[in-house]
């Protein structure tokens, strides 16, 4: 029991820190002079601080070092508790919203999925939109990294959290000797690119609110927009181009960005095999799908096809999910390929989700290794990515992850099918949620939203987002009996 209480203690502290996040929507409500909304947010802020403070005070005698096991528990607790308290302002401002839908919305934000149950986004108070996007942005780099940067200052060790957050095979090379320092640096890079994105979006014609919200969406690779028509609302190639660039940046490993900034050299990107594979795959897909749409006559000329194909392909492949047109109406190959890309494309250490490119590379190379082994039984053929040897144990853990991933997709799809959803909608909703991409196809496509789902279906999708964001192992480990054995 002591273990759980230690986690609650840390969680309480996190919630107190989290309440600071309300400053942005509060400021926004102040600027727009919307007094009732301002009051709602202030209330929510106080409640969050009070709940967190209360949890912390009650369990303060259990304050202690967090072990690896605690770490898993804390991460999952954070990603379930924070969306729960973050629903407070939504429930207060939008009295018609059910808790299920509000929780889906905040979970969608904090997991950077960007799927929404709300309609009439254009009419929402600016503070609510800011809040949704801010959740997405905070979720983006992982509140976890923020926590890793801050918690150790409060006397709680954080290296275990970092491990729990990123069980992927990558980045054994720590960027700085101290985890706090690393987290702070990554966070600064994230902040810096976000500011650049806001400025660029303002420059190509958005107003401040839209620029900030969409920069948050692009950087966190969430799909929240301030408009029901998403990016289609602006109908501006310049805005699409800017967003594409920043979505691709966000889909690369932030450690690479950090090293490039620190080394003041663009050449360092060439060493990031994973990032190059991501960019290469996206580029080929953009051109291929544009050609396909042109050939099928969806768009009259190649350039128009290229414009729509590239924005939506980049957006889906990077698990962002912003859309400039209703791509679910395209011939089925295109949206299916885009969903497939959303599973495999983004780099580890980015804000995207899914299998991640590094695991895709491991998988592809493993297949190649098997062929070599058949032809040359005596060959010693280690897995190598970017010149680095990857240990067999990592290859196994990748295979294990992929297996769990597909089992999760299958199980959750069946759950949605049982509840009566059609196959395309069910399958695409699970894929889009587990990859933290956002829109699926069918009723949950870019033109529809998740509001049409029943409560049960919404909860299934919420769960898919959670396990997808926390790389499945982290969540499912809590359901193993061994975890709870001493």
């Amino acid at each position: 029991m002591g273990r759980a209480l230690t986690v609650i203690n840390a969680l309480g502290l996190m919630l107190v820190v989290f309440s600071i996040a309300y400053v942005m929507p509060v400021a926004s409500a102040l600027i727009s002079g919307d007094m009732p909304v301002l009051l709602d947010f202030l209330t929510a802020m106080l409640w969050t601080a009070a709940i967190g403070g209360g949890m912390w005070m009650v369990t303060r005698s259990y304050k202690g070092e967090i072990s690896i096991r605690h770490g898993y528990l804390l991460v999952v607790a954070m990603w379930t508790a924070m969306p729960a308290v973050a629903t407070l302002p939504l429930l207060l401002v939008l009295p018609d919203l059910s808790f299920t839908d509000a929780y889906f919305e905040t979970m969608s934000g904090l997991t950077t999925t960007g799927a929404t149950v709300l309609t009439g986004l254009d009419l929402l108070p600016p503070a609510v939109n800011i809040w949704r996007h801010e959740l997405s942005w905070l979720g983006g780099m992982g509140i976890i990294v923020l926590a890793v940067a801050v918690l150790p200052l409060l006397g709680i060790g954080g290296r275990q959290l970092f491990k729990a957050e990123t069980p992927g095979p990558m980045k054994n090379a720590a960027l700085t000797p101290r985890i706090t320092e690393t987290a702070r640096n990554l966070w600064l890079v994230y902040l810096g690119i976000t500011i650049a994105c806001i400025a660029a979006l303002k420059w190509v014609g958005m107003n401040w609110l839209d620029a900030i919200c969409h920069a948050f969406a692009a950087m966190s690779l969430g799909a929240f927009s301030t408009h029901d028509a998403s990016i289609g609302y602006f109908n501006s190639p310049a805005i699409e181009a800017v967003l594409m660039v920043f979505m691709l940046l966000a889909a690369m490993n932030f450690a690479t960005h950090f090293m490039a900034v620190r080394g003041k050299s663009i050449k360092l990107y060439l060493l990031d095999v994973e990032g190059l594979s991501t960019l290469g795959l996206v580029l080929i897909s953009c051109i291929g799908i544009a050609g396909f749409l042109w050939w099928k006559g969806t768009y009259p000329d190649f350039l128009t096809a290229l414009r729509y194909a590239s924005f939506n392909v980049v957006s889906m492949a990077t698990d962002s999910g912003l859309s400039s047109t209703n791509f679910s109406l395209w011939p089925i190959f295109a949206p299916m390929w885009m969903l497939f890309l959303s599973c495999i494309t983004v780099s580890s250490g980015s804000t995207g989700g899914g299998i991640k490119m590094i695991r895709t590379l491991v998988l592809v190379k493993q297949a190649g290794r098997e062929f070599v082994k058949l032809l040359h039984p005596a060959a010693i053929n280690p897995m190598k990515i970017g010149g680095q040897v990857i240990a067999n144990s990592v290859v196994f853990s990748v295979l294990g992850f992929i297996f769990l991933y597909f089992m999760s997709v299958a199980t959750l799809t069946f759950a949605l099918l049982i509840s009566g959803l059609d196959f395309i909608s069910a399958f695409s909703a699970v894929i889009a949620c587990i990859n933290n991409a956002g829109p699926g196809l069918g009723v949950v496509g870019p033109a529809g939203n998740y509001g049409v789902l029943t409560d049960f279906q919404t909860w299934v999708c919420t769960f898919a987002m959670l396990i997808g964001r926390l790389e499945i192992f982290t969540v499912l480990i809590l359901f193993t009996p061994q975890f709870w054995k001493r």
Partner: protein
Amino acid sequence: MKILILGAGQVGSTVAESLVSEANDITVVDSDGAKLALLQERLDLRTLIGSASHPSVLEQAGIVDTDMLLAVTQSDEINMVACKLAYSLYNTPTRIARIRSVDFLSRPELFNKDNFCVDYSICPEQILTEYISKLIEFPEALQVLQFSRGKASLVAVRAFEGGPLVGKPLSVLHDNMPHIDARVAAIFRKDGPLIPEGSTVVEDGDEIFFIAATRNIRSVLSEMRRMDKPSRRVMIVGGGNIGRRLAQALERDYQVKLIEYNKKSCEKLAGELTNTLVLNGDGTDEKLLQQENVGEVDVFCALTNDDENNIMSALLAKQAGARKVIALINRSAYVDLLQGGKIDIALSPAQVTIGSLLAYVRQGDVAAVHSLRRGAAEALEMIVHGDRKSSKVVGRRIDEIDLPKGATIGAVVRGDEVVMGHRDVIIEAEDHVIVFVINKAMVKKVEKLFQVKLGFF
């Protein structure tokens, strides 16, 4: 000359052997007494047991009046420290160290007078690797030696029926290739050397040494014998220092398979090499060789540190149909036994690498020395200084130079230009002159000839 050698390993002992035969006073220091005892039995030199980087040991070995220090222990660090000590404490004039690590070599400032005071660094494995790569690039050649940083090459080739020149006098060479300048430096027929003249007729089976600009090698080779297809598939046995470097040098341009016995080393090699197929197994295991298609291999290199294994796996490969087999053989008796038989090239690492050291020991300004025909003959690259008065070569036509019989000037490298050693060429100061000496006994005379008279200084 008084020479102090640190380290009695393979390099140390072959160097000692070669230098003793040239009448030098040699002292060898090593921490392993058994190795020293072996040396002492065979050679006329002094040995000392002790740590090569300790000043007291160095003093005992007589470093105070030593002319040259050769630090060739297993450890780069000990070699560097020994050079530093020799310079700082004893002011030894010439300090040479064996440095293998690329990490050190890529920072030449480490070796200057302010740091480790290494005058010259040598890396035998690297020399051997380059030597073998050249043999793979020109599979018809028996030996390819480079002068003046690769501008000119001396190539040994066995003439075979089918080459346009075979059965004809040498003067035809110029008529066949009017645009290419090459010079035949020597011909060995049934082990006897011939001094080539325009009228000498090339016979099937002759071993011909010619000098040409490096880019022309292939055309000249095609005169001597029918050309094979260029090499594409290479199989290496032994993933030690040499095998690894060779695979690294070749893997971009060739299809390389590397067989190594030790599984741990295999894993390390597979991690370092990007394009090489690393196989775990025994190079003398005919099943493994068969399974990896040794019959289709263009060049098979047996490079383990075990002579017998190298010979056996090379023989197996030749038997199975490998086009050209190369075996690394340390024992010189074996080399003489095998060269030219079933094994196409029996490589003696000592013979290949000793030249780079000999260049520093020789008198006069010698840029390179290559041992030929297992040490019987020698090719030297001399840099000439001075003027008509102080030097016996500068300002003279080649046919005016008083070379001993059996020594020929093969070529002159002037700046970036390679000039063949025709009789009417006039030698200028700072030319690099490549001299081919049929009999090693004449080397001293040649060196003397190229030295500047004292008046110059």
